[in-house]
């Protein structure tokens, strides 16, 4: 450890972020454009198309009889193609959740300025097999009142605003 520190002290030049950003030292900047297109596939494709209609669809495995949400073409437990499509409800229960103080880009939220912490959670969907759920936001609820097993219902965007995306559901809100 001591040797390493000595070596660093004798050869390294410490730079601050300002020195680099203000151009006091020379640097090369580059921003590669990493574009991608992800194929939805038949299962997620139909799932997203049904969301546009305001419905949530799952798929059933004929062997283990699990009703799986999000739907998939292949049962990962039985190693067989899945069977029929099953509509499930847009209600469910909170399986797990977090109260987050940073946004998706890891930027700190202005909590003191009145911004509500984000509360993504896994919602076990009613009609699907226990334990099967989707990740979504929880809304219209005090972040600190969320609890495991809390009953929730999807809040949908108006039909004309839906695009066939998971965000066609705005969030899940608690119900009595």
């Amino acid at each position, binding site marked *: 450890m001591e040797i390493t520190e000595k070596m660093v002290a004798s*050869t390294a*030049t410490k*730079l601050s972020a300002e020195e*680099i*950003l203000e151009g006091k*030292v*020379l*640097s*090369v*900047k*580059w*921003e*590669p*454009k*990493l*574009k*991608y*297109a*992800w*194929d*939805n596939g*038949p299962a*997620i*494709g139909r799932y*997203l*198309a049904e969301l546009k209609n305001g419905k949530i669809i799952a*798929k059933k495995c004929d062997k283990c009889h699990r009703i799986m949400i999000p739907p998939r*073409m*292949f049962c990962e437990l039985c190693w067989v*193609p*899945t*069977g029929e499509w099953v509509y499930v409800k847009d209600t469910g229960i909170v399986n797990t959740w977090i109260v987050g103080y940073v946004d998706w*880009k890891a930027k700190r939220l202005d909590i003191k300025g009145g911004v509500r912490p984000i509360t993504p959670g896994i919602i076990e969907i009613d009609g699907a097999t226990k334990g099967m759920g989707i990740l979504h936001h929880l809304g219209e609820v005090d972040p600190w009142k969320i609890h495991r097993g809390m009953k929730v219902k999807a809040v949908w965007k108006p039909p004309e605003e839906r695009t*066939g995306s998971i965000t066609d559901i705005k969030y899940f809100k608690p119900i009595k």
Partner: protein
Amino acid sequence: MALIERYQKTTDIGYWEGQIPMSYIYTVGRAGEKFFREIIAGKLLGAKCDTCKIIYVPPRTYCEKCFARLEDSYVEVGTKGTVHTFTQCYETFDGMKKETPSIVAVIRIDGTNGGLVHWLGEVDFEKVSIGMPVEAAFKPKKDREGSILDIKYFKPVK
């Protein structure tokens, strides 16, 4: 069964687009700092190892053969050299067709053991040959910003 479900129209196939944000800043380092500051002045710098009789271009902070410190023995090496190897490029970095192909070469700087990768200009591809004497064509002084691109290209010595 599910696996024999088939799309009838290609337009039914959905996809999700995105872009991964990524950027980087690479600092040129101690040797690079000196090298590129000199390029602003229109000069090229090398690092000389007296023991090994090697002049590195671009300069290094230490000798790669004997590990001697070279930071105090930087020397000006002039802007002339010879074509060591060359090729012609028809595509840009991202694989797009170029309107006019460019000639890329390794230029061995005269009197040194090093070289620079750069473009060749003011010359036809057919006229380029290995060993051809070339010199650096710099940008106008006001446009230089301490980059290898402060040299526009290398051109044949008249």
